[in-house]
């Protein structure tokens, strides 16, 4: 089947995924804060209420713990809930149902029952929103056995991974970033899935591997434009899934280039970048020709002030700097 393509923004790609799957699968429903609002969760929930009604598009009270538990309970009897958190920071109230219940459920019931919920957290940073409206918590979730974690960076993957996450029988943490909502790209009109656990080579290269996910994959592509002009051939890997992580793709690239820059939008300590670095040194140490470089958030809460925000969030410049250190 040929997939017909046209341009769509990241936000509308998520919207299309939800719309198409809710039409097809009656067990899918959406709940969370702001799903009725035209602005709260970007354009991602556009028209859903009109199409599917209040029974399946549930704008909830501000009760993340109970609302998340509700999604888990519904999933245990065969529903496919998508629970949205317009700011990922709010998910901390829901750690109990996500971690204690959903993540453990299949294991602790000896495989008798599972909780296929999509927990969709939005990194809603920027705009001087400060420490409780800006956090990127994917490392916390990726630490937990039983959870899958995806973080798409393109409209194509945003749609395909949302559909894959809904279809998956396990709880999936789906992470997007407000800074990606305006990104446009080719998106097939049909229903399709991007496999969870598979990364993609965005650009082939031979001198250095830049591995990234979510918004940092976009920054890596921007960095590459500069590096190319300098005659540096970077291979860019967009992981798309943080757990399971596509080790094979990562190792293959690092074996080829011998140099690795990890560009990650979460805190440096004990996080995604630490894990990738450990995997590489544990498994393919002998191929490394230079120390692994990490571009990540400093170990500091998100600031409000714009000057501080600029200093805080890593960009293509930090990636370029890291590459130059080892080239």
């Amino acid at each position: 089947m040929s997939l017909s393509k046209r341009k769509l923004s990241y936000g509308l790609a998520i919207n299309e995924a939800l719309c198409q799957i809710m039409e097809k699968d009656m067990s899918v429903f959406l709940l969370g804060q702001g799903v009725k609002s035209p602005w709260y969760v970007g354009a991602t929930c556009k028209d859903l209420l009109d199409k599917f009604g209040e029974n399946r598009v549930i704008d909830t009270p501000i009760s993340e713990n109970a609302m998340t538990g509700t999604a888990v309970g519904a999933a245990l009897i065969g529903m496919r809930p998508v629970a949205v958190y317009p700011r990922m920071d709010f998910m901390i109230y829901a750690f109990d149902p996500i971690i204690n219940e959903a993540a453990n459920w299949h294991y602790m019931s000896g495989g008798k029952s599972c909780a296929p919920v999509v927990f969709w957290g939005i990194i809603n940073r920027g705009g001087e929103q400060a420490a409780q409206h800006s956090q990127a918590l994917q490392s916390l979730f990726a630490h937990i056995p039983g959870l899958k974690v995806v973080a798409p960076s393109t409209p194509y993957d945003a749609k395909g991974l949302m559909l894959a996450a809904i279809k998956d029988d396990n709880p999936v943490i789906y992470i997007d970033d407000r800074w990606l909502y305006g990104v446009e790209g080719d998106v097939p009109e049909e229903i399709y899935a991007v496999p969870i656990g598979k990364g993609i080579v965005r650009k082939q290269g031979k001198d250095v591997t830049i591995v990234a996910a979510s918004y940092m994959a976009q920054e890596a592509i921007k960095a590459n434009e500069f590096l190319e002009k300098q005659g540096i051939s970077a291979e860019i890997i967009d992981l798309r899934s943080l757990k399971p992580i596509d080790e094979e793709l990562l190792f293959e690239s690092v074996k080829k280039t011998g140099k690795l820059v990890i560009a990650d939008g979460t805190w440096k300590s004990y996080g995604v970048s630490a894990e990738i670095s450990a995997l590489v040194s544990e498994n393919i140490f002998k191929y490394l020709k230079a120390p692994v470089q990490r571009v990540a958030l400093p170990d500091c809460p998100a600031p409000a002030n714009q000057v501080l925000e600029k200093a805080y969030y890593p960009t293509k410049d930090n990636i370029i700097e890291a590459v130059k250190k080892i080239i």
Partner: protein
Amino acid sequence: MDYSKEFLEKLYKMMLKIRFCEESFVDPILKKEIQCPVHLYSGEEAIAAGVCAALTEKDYVFGNHRSHGHYLAKGGDIKELIAEIYCKETGCSKGRGGSMHIIAPEKGFLGAAPIVAGTIPLAVGSALASKIRKQEAVSVSFFGDGATGEGVLYESLNFAALKKLPVIFICENNFYSTHLHIRECRPPAPIYKIAQPFGISSIQVDGNDVLKIFKIAEKAVRLCRQGKGPFFIEFLTYRLRGHVGPDDNIQGSRADIRPAKEVEEWKRKDPVKRFEKFILENKILEETKIQEIKKQIQDEVKQAHNFAKQSPNPLKEQVNKYVFK
């Protein structure tokens, strides 16, 4: 008499089954044949038996850390239960869950978990699913008085009331959150009243009187099926054993922090003995028949222990099995 002889006999048998099952763990715990933490339900049997008698297999139940009774009353298999408490591969959770994670989804017992109040929103979720699917099923959440200290209970009451969900909140108030008496956890106001600000019908009922329990549960189920849920019931009861294990906090320590006089008073209100007296006085069953029933159930429990003891442990190579589906 409002109830048939068969119904009363069934109810009595279920209470006995739970009691004998629970008491059968005491010896193996003290001998350390069972090491997994076991929260015995002895003394509270009437609630599980009475409530579940008002449900069908299509209704849903979520339990907590003290849920052997809920599991059995909802129709869960006793061999698989006991094997799980020995953490064997043949257990209802394949030895991965133990006593606090028992499950029988095929009977509508959707699971138990020991995070206090953690399963309350799950029952709200199964009720929401029933509403979305336009199914008649009612969901029941069993929790203890300790759960009234958790915020998620109030969030759940709010949402269930807002959406008029078919869920029955059942608080088994046994007056102790592990070691701490309720007067040290809550101001002296009855628990059932916490549902009222949400417009939820609620009531306090003697949790050691199985017929009263059945009657109120039947009413709650009927209302939920008519779209008039949710409903909240506080049952006053008492555990005859410790918080965990036979005696008290430290499993097998043979000590109880509760006043001896208080324990003795509640022993006189033992729900199983109380119902047995009713059965005899109303000539539902003869004494000889009762002895026969007791023997049958004791045999069933014994066989389940033998089955569990002879069952294999999970294979160590399969420690990672079931992390993902």
